[in-house]
């Protein structure tokens, strides 16, 4: 029975310990740092695989550490948390390879990789959290660990971006803290229980619970970049590409979305949330975010800012799926958590490649890139088609389930929103493809670095291609046994079956 205790701890340690060691490493110890990073990532993948296998067979993993007299630090690996843990550990390995290639020769990499591992530790911890206070601890640790990464370049712009990022996330954290404490005073416990633990609370506390829900969603909405609180995401694009790839497209943004999933399913419980009538407004907010994000993306000339706004709209799908409060929509929302991660990280890797190899930052500079960097643009194209929701790629599956879920709960107008969003996605992604594949390059590339026969360094090229293939495979073999969709159905089936 004891390995059920140390496995979650080992998963956390597998990125924490290398991180701490790397902090202490001198700058020139490149080989040691790379090996530490890579075997840390591989070890984590192996451990997560073991846990996946265990949870699939009903094994129970839980670690409890006394934090406050009645409150404990709980790490519990249930089906939902493993979904997010698998995503972040897979993408961490890929992004580490990418970061090693991307940061070749740039200063203070020890600091970068130290904080990088800290961020992943926070993300995995946040996913494995068994109660709200553990979630809050890792949620704030994530903010603290991402801040230095945004500031990594040390320019004035990054400082300004860092300040904006903090303003949002700190305010969000404060709201979350107040809400959690208020909830604790009302409910007496913070443990995540499948159908939520609030239905026992008597009637007169319901208005308070509604306010708590609003505060929780506001606190988590900052990281999930819901509309009024999304300001920091486009600003954070000033960070180096691996940071914006793993963190601002996957880890940080998903932390917010994952938090919303936890709050709606494991704190309030779906039917209690609908009873309170809070899911309606959440659907509206998510819809507005989807449309607004895509619309703003339409008018961004800077490639990474366009991808950032697209992330704002795509992450709102997850909130939409959760807020529709139907089983099929839940499947759509949660599976989009994984699919969007794969697709968006591909796009950011390609954007990073373009910036690093050809010095292209603007969409207007991308004419004729397809011929110069065919493999990168091929991966980019797969990512784009995924975003639009074209069938073979992963995006289609999640849009399919979201659409079905919307119909199931007879919210017909949501189909319109999904359609509009796909239209807008096409509107702001296809011109890029058109320019890349079908136009002639207008003049020489801004700062071209050629790598001989290959279009760019292998460490920069391999990750986007791998993630693009993953996105394609996840889309194509959706119903196969060990895919995210199957796992999500396994999760939802436990969530909704009373």
């Amino acid at each position, binding site marked *: 029975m004891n390995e059920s205790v140390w496995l979650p701890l080992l998963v956390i340690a597998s990125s924490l310990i290398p991180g701490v060691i790397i902090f202490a490493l001198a700058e020139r110890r490149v080989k040691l740092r790379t090996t530490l990073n890579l075997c840390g990532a591989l070890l984590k993948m192996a451990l997560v695989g073991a846990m996946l296998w265990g949870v699939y067979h009903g094994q129970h993993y839980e670690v409890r550490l006394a934090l406050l007299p009645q409150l404990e630090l709980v790490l519990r690996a249930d089906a939902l948390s493993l979904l997010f843990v698998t995503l972040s550990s897979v993408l961490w390995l890929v992004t580490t390879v990418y970061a090693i290639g991307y940061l070749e020769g740039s200063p203070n990499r020890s600091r970068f990789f130290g904080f990088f591992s800290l961020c992943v530790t926070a993300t995995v911890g946040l996913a494995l959290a068994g109660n709200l206070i553990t979630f809050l601890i890792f949620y704030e640790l994530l903010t*603290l660990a991402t801040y230095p990464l945004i500031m990594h370049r040390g320019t004035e712009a990054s400082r300004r971006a860092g300040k904006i990022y903090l303003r949002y996330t700190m305010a969000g954290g404060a709201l979350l803290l107040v809400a959690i*404490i208020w909830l604790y005073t009302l409910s007496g416990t913070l443990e995540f229980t499948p159908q939520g633990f609030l239905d026992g609370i008597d009637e007169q506390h319901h208005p308070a619970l509604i306010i708590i829900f609003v505060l929780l969603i506001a606190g988590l909405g900052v990281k999930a970049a819901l509309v009024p609180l999304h300001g920091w995401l486009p600003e954070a694009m000033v960070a180096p590409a691996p940071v914006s790839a793993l963190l601002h497209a996957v880890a940080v943004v998903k932390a917010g979305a994952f938090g919303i999933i936890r709050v709606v399913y494991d704190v309030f419980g779906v039917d209690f949330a609908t009873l309170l009538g809070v899911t309606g407004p959440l659907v509206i907010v998510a819809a507005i975010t989807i449309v607004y994000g895509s619309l703003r993306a339409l008018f961004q000339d800077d490639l990474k800012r366009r991808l950032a706004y697209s992330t704002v709209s795509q992450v709102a799908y997850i909130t939409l799926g959760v807020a529709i409060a139907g089983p099929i929509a839940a499947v759509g929302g949660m599976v989009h958590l994984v699919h969007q991660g794969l697709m968006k990280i591909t796009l950011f890797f390609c954007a990073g490649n373009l910036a690093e190899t050809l010095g292209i930052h603007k969409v207007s500079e991308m004419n004729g890139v397809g011929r110069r960097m065919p493999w990168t643009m091929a991966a980019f194209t797969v990512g784009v088609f995924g975003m639009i929701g074209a069938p073979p790629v992963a995006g289609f599956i999640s849009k399919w389930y979201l659409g079905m879920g919307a119909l199931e709960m007879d919210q017909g107008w949501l189909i319109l929103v999904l359609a509009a969003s796909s239209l807008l996605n096409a509107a702001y992604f296809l011109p890029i493809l058109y320019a890349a594949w079908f136009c002639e390059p207008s003049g020489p590339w801004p700062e071209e670095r050629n790598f001989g026969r290959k279009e760019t360094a292998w460490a920069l090229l391999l990750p986007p291609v791998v993630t693009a293939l993953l996105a394609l495979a996840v889309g194509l073999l959706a119903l196969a046994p060990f895919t995210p969709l199957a796992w999500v159905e396994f999760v939802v089936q436990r969530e909704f079956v009373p």
Partner: protein
Amino acid sequence: MVPSSEIPWGALLILLPLAAAILCFVWPKLAVVTGVVTMLLLTLAVGGFAWQLQREGLYQHAVGGWETPLGIGLYGDGLSLLMLAMTVLVGLAITLYARSYFNQKQARVFWPLWLLLLAALNALFLSADIFNLYITLEMVGLAAVALVALKGGRDALNGAMRYLLATLLGSLTYLLGVALLYHSYGTVDLVLLAERIDNSPVVWAALGLMGAGLLLKTALFPLHFWLPAAHASAPAPISALLSALLVKASFYIFLRLWLVLFAPLGGDVALLLGLLGAVAILWGSWQALRQTRLKLLVAYSTVAQIGYLFVAFPLAAAAGAMLWNGVSYLMLSHALAKAAMFLAAGNLLLFGGHDRIAELDRAVQRLPISTAAFALAGVSIMGVPPSGGFIGKWLLLEAAIEQGYWLLAAVMVVGGLLASAYIFKVVGYAFTRSTATPEPQSIPMGMEWAALLLAIASILLGFTAPWVFALLGIGDPFGGGAP
């Protein structure tokens, strides 16, 4: 009741630093060695004391064999153990730091003063006699003044003078309160006073006078005018010492008196204290945000954090002992974090030759350990989760929300946000490059690691709350009033 053949750890805690101070005074060449050795012995003594408390519960010892009310009673329970531990932890770091900070001439004076101060603090935390507390307060005050003025310089001298006047005024008012209590109840011993106290005008006057004196020394909002100048202009280890230990010593006495004597009649006085605390949080944080010099920023942050300690008073009536556990935990983590911050700020000042925040030229790359220490300590000051400050803030907020004090809860949260604003302002500037790049002076490793170890300790406090509360509970300091 006298511990049998046991080693009298309590008495040792007081006599050891006194003897060492005398030794240092007579043979200055041995100063540094004696200082370090005494610090290690003190750590051992606190450990022994804690183990003794654990086994035998409350530590009560009549000095000179004379029973109270005639003689002076030493009294050690969970709360004094916490304060002693805090003193030793911060003391270790400061000893490590000061070893390579002072030149030979200054060290000759620093070590005896520092050991006398340690002795006074230990005596203060173990005494249950309010007149004895007056003498220890006076001793602490004078030693602090002498230390602040140690390196000279216009700001330091002005700060020291203002601090001396404030501390003398505080002591005299406190003494007047002691006189009134003695002459109305015939004893100066806390234990006996607790039994004899009743609701007479004398007690109100005593509360007013002693409260005013102690609040002046603790620098609660309206009476905080002397703190920023004194704490910011003092040499680094001394400002760390001041902010971490001294401010807490007078708060400890106020807390003792409040729990033992003044709690029953403290209804609206508690509310006033809470209000002053709230204003202190907002005003201190706002001032800290406006500062352009690093040490002044950290000093104003102390003013704000003291506010947190007083915000708990109005909540005390309804909340159980857990609230006071929260307050003492906040005190402990603030002491460690603030000491780390001042030591880190001292390193940055020594390294860059100035402490203008806007020109912390790439401190992250050039002075990584100190900047890391500052940032980690900042995390604990802000009360952001993985830190000790978070546990304290959580308990306070829980009590505030449970009893419906929305204003206090809001102030605490806004205080946290303001704290994160001014700390990340500094950390932000540590990343960027600045134009003026004076030739940096190298900082010895011991000084940097002293700051970092303290900061890490304040973060680790986030995970050790249950054990600390267990130790804190010995002798039931926050129980039914009677210690």
